[in-house]
């Protein structure tokens, strides 16, 4: 298994309405082209074949599960002194040009997956070497040299032109979930290379489904659902085997708000770039997405979304494979129109949506129960058995420091637990909608817990920078280049 990183991608579009959908675009591309997820289907979210979004590639079978790069079709990086950030591509496939500046270059490196894999903004080009100059996103480190014909590459359209939002299913009523069927809202279904063949549905929820308040509708800006049995339109089925509660129940009832966890940048923050870091393995266990506000600003804050299949699952495994899957993220849009409340700020602390206006920084999570219905799930931090409460656990203790026994910062796997919350929308009219059937699922892939007072977005101090602390005591394996503060 190799871990690949998408390091600190700076969103380019900060002014127009589609900026809030960039994350879905980046995530789908990262999964499809870097982590090796295969394509199942989509609606208005075609990153799979050369066309509007996928501009060019050396892959002659870009729609197949496995790419085909004939000899000479791959890319190289670091062409030498003062050409360190140059990525050469075969001129026979595409000639670099000015129109590509601002577009996205996707690289998949098998030799240096934490340095040279990822999604990079093209900031220039060099005709003599037929190279793109990329925003490598590091502080002083240079890419490890990979000669020409070393890395898979894909040229994608600028994030300004990413899929955005459509209208709901016209064949359904307002009481139903309407992000499926003939809905024009963009969504895509990808399938993990893991042997379970589980699927991930990334959906920019429709205008008929995105919640505009705690008492209206059900969905966040972009939902990320896991399950089985997705179709060519990029949809799971009502009553199917997946974690998207509104879609499963085919309901727009507010009791399901939070039941389609995913991503949102908080809406009305025009003028603010986000910095996106993603981590995943080519073993298909899942992805963790971190979107960071420059300066760690508030309202909206940053967010986290992590999903897939847990590590270290306890035995026996559930007979229902969907019960092994999870998504944790933000369960609502978090827009300023929502009452100035914030999104999860990269925190995996669990909490409800309603009545927490001043108790922010909490996530919502969903899974599938062993008996087939959507069920809540959440991270399970190590917490003081008594005397502790939200944000006062051992990870957040003010005295936390390196541990004298190991002269380092302790990191622990972060457990994942299912069935301990009967609903995520705790408004006065809410009713329990998920079974309380607690079950330890395993540990969250690629995310570890440690002390929160380690510097935000700081690498560990060992020579190889083994980990990076994101925020709120969440660490991810790093082993990559130095980090821009």
């Amino acid at each position, binding site marked *: 298994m190799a871990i690949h990183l998408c390091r600190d991608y700076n969103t380019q579009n900060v002014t127009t309405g589609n900026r809030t959908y960039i994350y879905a675009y980046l995530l789908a591309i990262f999964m499809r082209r870097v982590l090796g997820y295969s394509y199942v289907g989509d609606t208005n979210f075609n990153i799979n074949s050369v066309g509007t979004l996928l501009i060019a590639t050396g892959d002659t079978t870009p729609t197949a599960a496995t790419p085909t790069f004939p000899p000479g079709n791959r890319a190289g990086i670091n062409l030498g002194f003062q050409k360190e950030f140059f990525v050469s591509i075969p001129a026979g496939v595409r000639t670099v040009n000015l129109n590509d500046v601002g577009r996205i270059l996707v690289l998949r490196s098998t030799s240096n997956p934490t340095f040279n894999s990822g999604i990079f903004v093209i900031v220039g080009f060099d005709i003599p070497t037929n190279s793109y100059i990329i925003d490598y996103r590091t502080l002083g480190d240079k890419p490890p040299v990979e000669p020409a014909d070393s890395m898979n590459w894909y040229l994608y359209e600028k994030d300004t032109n990413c899929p955005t939002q459509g209208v709901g299913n016209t064949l359904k009523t307002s009481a139903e979930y309407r992000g499926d069927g003939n809905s024009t809202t963009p969504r895509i279904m990808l399938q993990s290379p893991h042997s379970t063949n589980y699927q991930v549905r990334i959906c920019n929820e429709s205008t008929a489904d995105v919640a505009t308040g705690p008492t209206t509708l059900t969905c966040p800006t972009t939902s990320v659902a896991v399950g089985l049995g997705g179709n060519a339109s990029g949809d799971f089925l009502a009553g199917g085997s997946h974690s998207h509660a509104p879609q499963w129940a085919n309901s727009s009832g507010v009791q399901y708000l939070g039941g389609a966890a995913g991503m949102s940048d908080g809406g009305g923050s025009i003028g603010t770039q986000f910095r996106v870091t993603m981590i995943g393995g080519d073993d298909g266990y899942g992805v963790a997405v971190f979107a960071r506000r420059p300066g760690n600003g508030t309202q909206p804050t940053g967010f986290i979304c992590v999903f897939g299949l847990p590590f270290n699952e306890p035995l026996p495994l559930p007979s229902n494979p969907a019960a092994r899957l999870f998504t944790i993220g933000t369960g609502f849009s978090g827009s300023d129109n929502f009452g100035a409340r914030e999104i999860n700020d990269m925190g995996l602390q669990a909490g409800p949506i309603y009545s927490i206006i001043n108790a922010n920084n909490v996530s919502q999570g969903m899974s599938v129960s062993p008996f087939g219905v959507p069920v809540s799930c959440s991270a399970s931090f190590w917490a*003081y*058995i008594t005397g502790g409460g939200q944000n006062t*656990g051992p990870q957040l203790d003010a005295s936390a420091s390196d541990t004298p026994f190991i002269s380092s910062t302790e990191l622990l796997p972060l457990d994942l637990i299912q069935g301990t919350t009967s609903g995520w929308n*705790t408004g006065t009219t809410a009713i329990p909608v998920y079974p309380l*059937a*607690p079950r330890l699922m395993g540990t969250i892939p690629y995310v570890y817990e440690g002390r929160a007072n380690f510097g935000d977005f700081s690498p560990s101090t060992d020579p190889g920078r083994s980990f990076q602390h994101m925020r709120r005591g969440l660490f991810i394996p790093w082993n990559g280049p130095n980090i821009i503060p």
Partner: protein
Amino acid sequence: MATKFCRSLIFTGTTNGAPKATYPLKAIYEFWGYVINGTASLTTPGGFAATTPFGGGLPADFQGLFTTIAGASNGQTLPQAVIALASTTNLATSGTVYIATTTGTQTVTYTGISGNNITGCSGGTGVMSTGNIVTSPSLITFGNDGYTNQTTSFQFGGQQSFFSASQPFTTAMVGKTLVMWKAGSNSSEDGLYNIVGFVSPTQILINVNNGGTPSAPDGYKPAFSNRTSINFRVVDMGIAGATTGVTDGNFMVMQFDPTGVNAGQANSQIQLLIAGATNTRIDHKISPAGTWNGTTFSDATAQTAPNAPSSSAFFSGTSGGTTQQITLIGDKDFLIGHYRDANNAMGAAGVAFHIEIPDRLYTSAQDPNPIVVNFNGFGATTQFTSTGTTHTYGGGWVMKCNDGTARAHRCSVRALSGDGNANLSLVSAAQTPGNALNDFRAGANAFAGNLLNSPGFLTLPGVAGQYSLARVRLRKVRFANSFMPQFTRINTSSGDFILITQGVAIPWDKAVLPFTLFPF
């Protein structure tokens, strides 16, 4: 290794009012030294430091003085005014001894000592022979020819028979304690038992529910199997606990065996010391490397009193006498106990302690010899709770820190959601297993038919330079939903546990409790 049980042993203390802490200390001595660590020796306990493990003036009668009949009394028939012994070392200047004769164990009183003779003797029958055993009052008799028969039928009061062909039993032993063990046995039939009846010099009745092995046909009722050559001691816990002359500083040094827990760990030691005004506490010192040399340690922590919310006393000043009750659960790498008396002199909850070799989470080079001690003095609402941040199972876990100081660590558990906040109003309770988790809907999986439970990590916050997020993982406690009834049994991948109170569960087997662990 195998877990052994002393389930709610009841014994009667004396009324002299002097000793207190010696009652549980004596029970620990018998349970740790013979039941868990016993060898073929009937009078030399295992599981203690190799060199001078008992000291500070601890009276010999605490252990049970052992000697034999000397040649001068060979062939004489009791009663005799003068009886010759092999030794009178540590024997009280007057009192009682038990002598084995042709008619079994005899009670003999004496009024003086002259050389190796006891004088002014009276009582007893039968013929004495050279080498016959003589014991002091706390150790009535002992032997190695005990045997039991498999009995599965229900016996009122849990009465089952214990046999010895050497006819050591007398009616006076009813109400006393039988200690039985086989060296190296994994049977939980090794234990401390109330003697509830006398049948003949070769047969007594004991309460099998004090120990026993849950066996066929249902696998839940404690019973005996067919065993022979069982080592045994008959102990008067009341007399031993009331031994005169016990003073502060008297001690015993227990040694733990980490085999199978942490690779390369030394035999860590704990010194238990009588302390406090009029013998009201059991203090401890921790020696992770097990360095007791008969006089001192080279690595031990300072003497530490029990944790308690309102008092560091382990006992009140009036707990001598009355009916005593103790539960002990242990193996060579852990010992858990609970003790109280009938008049609630220690509070209704009694006192409790928990010592174990926990799972090491750092490397052996970084943290070579972890051992943790949790002594809870009386004053808590209940000892088996997790409500305290500096005591009880929530925060009373004393370990030697990196700087050599003993500090109480807090316990961290796996939260049911996030970091355990109580903001999820649909659940309406804090989401951390243990005392705080009291919502009947959370923490129990009705579909799977099990209780979600969590082990505990020990965390040390609040001390500059000594922070540990998760230094060790406790092996012998689980934390679950406090809403569940007391004595609910929990099956885990690490064995069975029983929920005591408020979400705290300790190791158990499949035995259905015949009575409460807190009987008063």
